Structure formats: structure tokens, C-alpha cells
């Protein structure tokens, strides 16, 4: 048990904090209001090595691992959740499968562009009819000579229309007797080379409005057979493995947002009064802040534990889900309590507390809803009993 970050990570954290505060936070409100995709910030993140946190150095990545990524991206999330989710999906859901499952040829072609952030990535699992039940997806990939031809509609795709590369999950076994997980394979799709990829309009959202979320339509999208990731029929396992990493990322996002809201309140109470006395002298205020700080710390410990387990290739399905479940739940509570604590100033849209509240809500929805995390955890608990 070592609760101290290494010198190296502390330095990364300090650098990330500075960049986040000076360069990322200032435009967050504008990006929210005007739905501006953070192109320049992604460039900065690329320069810093944050678009290739999990990519080996030989391909230009920073290779700081899941722990390093968590530490750095918490700072990004605290500054701007829209930027965070774009970076998080790129790292956890796109660069990871490239590194873990792609052929040497694909890696040489794509990983340097991925690591620098020059080519952004998306993860295409969800469909209109397949959300929590992702294994019921209908998109098909049919063999044709030395390619696969992919057809189907994907929904809710983060960065979809800004991405060059997508990890697409599709059924390769069309035989109805092979159902669910075993019928699914994963592919790398180069949106520019393959053709046939079009996008829906950007989804109008409660929060993270600077990120892009679109439907993606795949029509006769032709990809070389070499773009198959891992083995045929193992795509669903790949999807779930990626989500284990992604969930740590969303836990960190929630913690970053919750922390930003908490720190905003902490910074203000010193100068505010409540019922005629300084807010800092009110137990209502003191106890609320004490609760928030405790929950945020607990959430961070859960998330960092899951990150370390993942870096060490140890089992972490339950731990990643616990981190995401707890962090997203308490971060939303923190955001709501801060709004209430600050009164009218907390809910006014010229302040930051209301944006943080809106941004935070999605953390209980994507990469597995709160219900799905509980299903995953319960399943692991029962499996542990049997073992």
C-alpha cells in the first residue's frame, strides 16, 4: 500500500494542473455556451503526450500508464469536461485496442498519428436498439474477398464526426444460431480511406456541449481484413475490456468535475455570509464541505486502485465498475449540493456551478449506466463466492 504518487507522477500532475488552469479552464464556459469543439486544446494535449498516455514511446506516446493518465486527466476534467471526454475516449477506447490488438502493420501506420492527437479516435459500440444490451447490436461485417464490408447505424458516438479512426463493433456471424457476444468482432475503420461513413447532426445535450456526440451511419464501408482487431468473434470481449479502462476514465472525469465544483464553493465561502455570520462559521456549510471532500477522496482512491490493477494486468473488472459507480454518484451529489449551498448564485448560468452540475450528469450514463455497473459488480460478487 503506497498512497504517495511517485516524484515523476507528482511532476506530471503539477504540469497538468498548470496547463489545465491556464489554458483549458478559461474557455470552458464559451465552449459550453457555443458548443465549440476544443480543437486547439486537443493539439495542446497532443503536444503534452496526453493523447498517447497508453501508447509506447517508440510510437511517440508518453506511455504513462493508466495511473499516469488518471492523474493527468483529472486536471483536464476539472478544467473542462468536454475536453476531458474527448481525450479520455481517444486514449482508453481507441489507442488501447490499437496497442493491444492491432497488427504490427496497423500500429506502424496509425499509432504515431494517434499518439500525437493528429488523428482523433472514436469508439462505435452503441446502436439505437443496443445500449446497455450492447451484445444485441445489429451492425454487420460481411467477408468479401480480402475485405469486410460493414453496414449499420451507430448512435451516441463521442467525437464521431471529428474522428479519423473508429473502433467499430459488428456481427461477423450472421447465422442467427450464433447469438450475442460470440458473433461480434472488432475493426479499425479509417473513416477517410474506407468511404461510406456519414454522420448525423450533433446531439443537443444537457452538458459536455463542447464535445461532439453524433449518430454514425456505416454504408458499405469496406475495410481490409487486416483491420480486424484480435480474433474474429472476440470483439465483445475486447469491447468490455476497453470499457474497464474507459470506466476508470469516466470515474476520473466525475471526480474532476466534482472537485472543481467543491473547490469553487470552498473558495467562495470565505467571503460569503449566511444568516448574518460568515459562512465558514456555519456547521451546515462546514459539514457539507467535509462530506464532499471525504467522498471525493474516497472516489479517487477507488479510481486509482483500479488504474494500478489495470497497469499491473491484475483482475479489475469489479474495481473499475466500483470506481465509476461511486465516483459518478457522489460527484453528482457534490455538484447539486454546491448549487444549493451557494443559493441563487449557484444556479445562475453566469457562474460555473450550474455548468459543472450539467456536465456531471452524463457520468452516470455512458460507458455503462449506474445500473449496469451494479450488475457487473453483483455478478463478480457471486462469481467470487463460487470460486
Amino acid at each position: 500500500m503506497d498512497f504517495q504518487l511517485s516524484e515523476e507522477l507528482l511532476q506530471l500532475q503539477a504540469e497538468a494542473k498548470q496547463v489545465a488552469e491556464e489554458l483549458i479552464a478559461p474557455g470552458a464556459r464559451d465552449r459550453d455556451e457555443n458548443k465549440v469543439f476544443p480543437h486547439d486544446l486537443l493539439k495542446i494535449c497532443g503536444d503534452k503526450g496526453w493523447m498517447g498516455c497508453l501508447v509506447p514511446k517508440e510510437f511517440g506516446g508518453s506511455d504513462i500508464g493508466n495511473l499516469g493518465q488518471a492523474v493527468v486527466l483529472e486536471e483536464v476534467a476539472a478544467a473542462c469536461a468536454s475536453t476531458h471526454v474527448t481525450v479520455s475516449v481517444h486514449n482508453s477506447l481507441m489507442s488501447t485496442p490499437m496497442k493491444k490488438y492491432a497488427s504490427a502493420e496497423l500500429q506502424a501506420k496509425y499509432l504515431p498519428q494517434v499518439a500525437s492527437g493528429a488523428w482523433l479516435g472514436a469508439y462505435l459500440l452503441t446502436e439505437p436498439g443496443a445500449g446497455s444490451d450492447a451484445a444485441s447490436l445489429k451492425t454487420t461485417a460481411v467477408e468479401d474477398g480480402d475485405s469486410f464490408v460493414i453496414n449499420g447505424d451507430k448512435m451516441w458516438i463521442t467525437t464521431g464526426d471529428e474522428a479519423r479512426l473508429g473502433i467499430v463493433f459488428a456481427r461477423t456471424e450472421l447465422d442467427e444460431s450464433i447469438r450475442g457476444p460470440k458473433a461480434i468482432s472488432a475493426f479499425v475503420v479509417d473513416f477517410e480511406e474506407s468511404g461510406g461513413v456519414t454522420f448525423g447532426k450533433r446531439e443537443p445535450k444537457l452538458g459536455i456541449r463542447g464535445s461532439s456526440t453524433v449518430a454514425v451511419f456505416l454504408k458499405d464501408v469496406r475495410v481490409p481484413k487486416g483491420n480486424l482487431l484480435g480474433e474474429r468473434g472476440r470483439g465483445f470481449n475486447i469491447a468490455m475490456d476497453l470499457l474497464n479502462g474507459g470506466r476508470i476514465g469516466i470515474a476520473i472525469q466525475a471526480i474532476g468535475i466534482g472537485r472543481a465544483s467543491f473547490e469553487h464553493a470552498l473558495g467562495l465561502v470565505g467571503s460569503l455570509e449566511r444568516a448574518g455570520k460568515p459562512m465558514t462559521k456555519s456547521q451546515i456549510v462546514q459539514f457539507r464541505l467535509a462530506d464532499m471532500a471525504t467522498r471525493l477522496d474516497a472516489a479517487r482512491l477507488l479510481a486509482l486502485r483500479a488504474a494500478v490493477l489495470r497497469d499491473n494486468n491484475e483482475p479489475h473488472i469489479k474495481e473499475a465498475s466500483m470506481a465509476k459507480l461511486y465516483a459518478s454518484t457522489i460527484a453528482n451529489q457534490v455538484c447539486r449540493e454546491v448549487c444549493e449551498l451557494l443559493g441563487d448564485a449557484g444556479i445562475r448560468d453566469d457562474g460555473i456551478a450550474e455548468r459543472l452540475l450539467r456536465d456531471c450528469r452524463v457520468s452516470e450514463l455512458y460507458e455503462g449506466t449506474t445500473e449496469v455497473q451494479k450488475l457487473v459488480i453483483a455478478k463478480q460478487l457471486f462469481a467470487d463466492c463460487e470460486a
Partner: protein
Amino acid sequence: MKSTYFYPAPSEDQQMILDLVVGFAKDELTSLAEAIDHQGEIPQALQEQMAEMGLLAIPISEDNGGAGFDFTSYVLSLAEIAKASGTVAMHLANQTTFFLEPLAQFATGHRAFDEVASGGALGALALLEDAGSFSGEGIQTSADGLKLSGQKSGVLGGEDAKWILVGAKEGDGISFFAFEKDRAGTYLSETSKRLGFRSLSSSTLTFENVTLSDEDRVGQAGDGAAILAFLHTRGLVALTAIAAGIADAAGEAAAQYATERKQFRRAISEFEAIKQRLASSVLAHGASMSLLLSCSRMIDDGIPCDQLARVAKVTATSGALEATDDALQVYGGYGFSQEYPAERFYRDACCLGVFLGGNDDSIQELAMTILPQ
């Protein structure tokens, strides 16, 4: 089938206004609610229509220029309207409870009444100050010598209002005045929107030596405590109604969605976890409506209900927050989309706890009621 909480059954009068309001809410308001929220504005035509229907002054006697229904009719109407549009309900409460009712009660014949009651202009209450609570403590704005100086923040609908009702210190007490916002020395110093209830601004009004006259008075000099209590109790009950309506709307929408949405080859409504999420709306709505009716009947019968009104408001607003959060969750990713109503219910509900001094204040006051004097 959802049961009714209305027992004993409504009187003929109550049923009449409810039928009118339910029809209006269902046939007209529901389809406009999304646009009103997005544009942050209630269309002029709709405002005129509501004024013509008498919805701005439901609980004010006909003698005093109102529609002549009881307070129960009014809050039940608010709940129905809130079910369609939280911000329209809040707008009506803002006109009725925070402006017209105190005028009718404490300043019959005031110049502002007819104009606001007929929908010709809007009113707003400027009471709270940065450090103040609703008890009147912390009011710094002064009206001594009939010169008004000070600042009011968080004025609901302060931007669009023509008339403002201001509470200020005068001598040892508090006095109320209603006058035109364009009177010399009155400034709209800040204004923005909120997370929810998007048609109503949150405004800061600054007064620099504004000249007042006895004609502006609402109530006698220094009599403000009674007006404060009147405003507070009725305001809490009105907020209870709005919270009840929002919780109900969120639950109904989510239940409908849950029966249509299929995952794992069944309607998601079949999952126990989803039923739990849906039930929180039933719990919130049931508790709020029962408390609402108790309070409103006490008000109609002239029985003080300030304590129960606090219980009602705290219960209803925290219930609505939970119900709307749960409803949003039932929609999954679609709950985050502004093309579905769940996120609007949630945004509105997140604001409810803040109004009228906040639930923390109410909770402190409630503890005092069981402490020995």
C-alpha cells in the same frame, strides 16, 4: 392507474377551474414547453391568453379584481401547469403570490394591481439580499425618509418586470413599496438566467436614493413583518405545488419511456431497478400533494400553516429532485439529450431547493419548533 390525492372531492368551483387548467395545460402548454425552455421566454400571445383566462389572479377575490377562487384551486392549478411547464408555473406564481396577492391583501386599489392582473405588465418581488434570509434578517436596503437605497439580488423575473415590490428597513421595522422599475435611481445592475426555469431572469436591482411616496406603500409603515410571513407561507406552498407537478411529469414521462424502450429483449419497465426509479416520482408526488392540500385548506380556512408549509416545501422539493434525477436515469443516454424532456425536469428541480431562502434555512426553522421556548 394512479390514484387521486384529492379527498374530499373538489367543490364545483374547484373542479371548474381545474378542468379549465388541465385542458389548457394538456392541449396547449405541453407542446410549447420545450420551446419556452430553449428560448428562455414565454411568448407574448401565451401571456395574454393566460391573463384573459384569469390565471394571473386565481385566488384573489372578485371584489379585489381577481378570479375569485380559493387558494386550493390556485395551487392545484399551479401543479397542473408545472406538469406541462415548470417555468410557466413559476411565472404565474411570481405574478400571483409574489406580487398580486400581497397587493390585494395589504394595499387594495394600488395602481399596479390592475395592470399586472390584466397581463398589461409584469411584477416582481425584490426582497432577498446577498446575505439575507427570508425571515427579514439581513435586509440592509433602507427606506428611511421615503428615500430608497440598497441592493436586491436574485430577483425572479426582475428583468422583464415593469413593477417591483420592494421590502426595506424603515425605522425599526420593515416596509413594503410597489413602484415602477424605471423610476429614477433604480438600476438593473446584473441579470442572467438560471439552470432551470429559463423564462425567468435572476436579476440584481440597485436603488440609489429612489424617491418613494405613500401612494407606493403596500401595508402600513413598519408593518412588513406580517407581509413577509404572508409571502413566505404562500410562497412555500406555491413552490410545493410546482415541485409536485414537476415530479409527476417526470415520473409519467419516464414510465411511458420505460414501457416502450426494450433492452435484453424486454421492456426496461420490467426491471426492478427501473421500477425503483419510477416509484420515487410516485412517492414524491403523493407526499407533496397530501401536504399541499393540507396547507392550502388551512390557508383557505384562515388557520396559520407556516410550519406545515416548510415541511411541505422541503419534502416536495427534495422529492422532486430525486424523482427527476431518477426519471432522467430511466432514459439512459436519451436522458442527456435535449430532445427528450427529462433533462428539463431535472434542471428545474435542481433549482427548487434554492428558492425562498433554501431548504437549509427551513430545516433550521423546523428544528426550532420542537425545542422548548
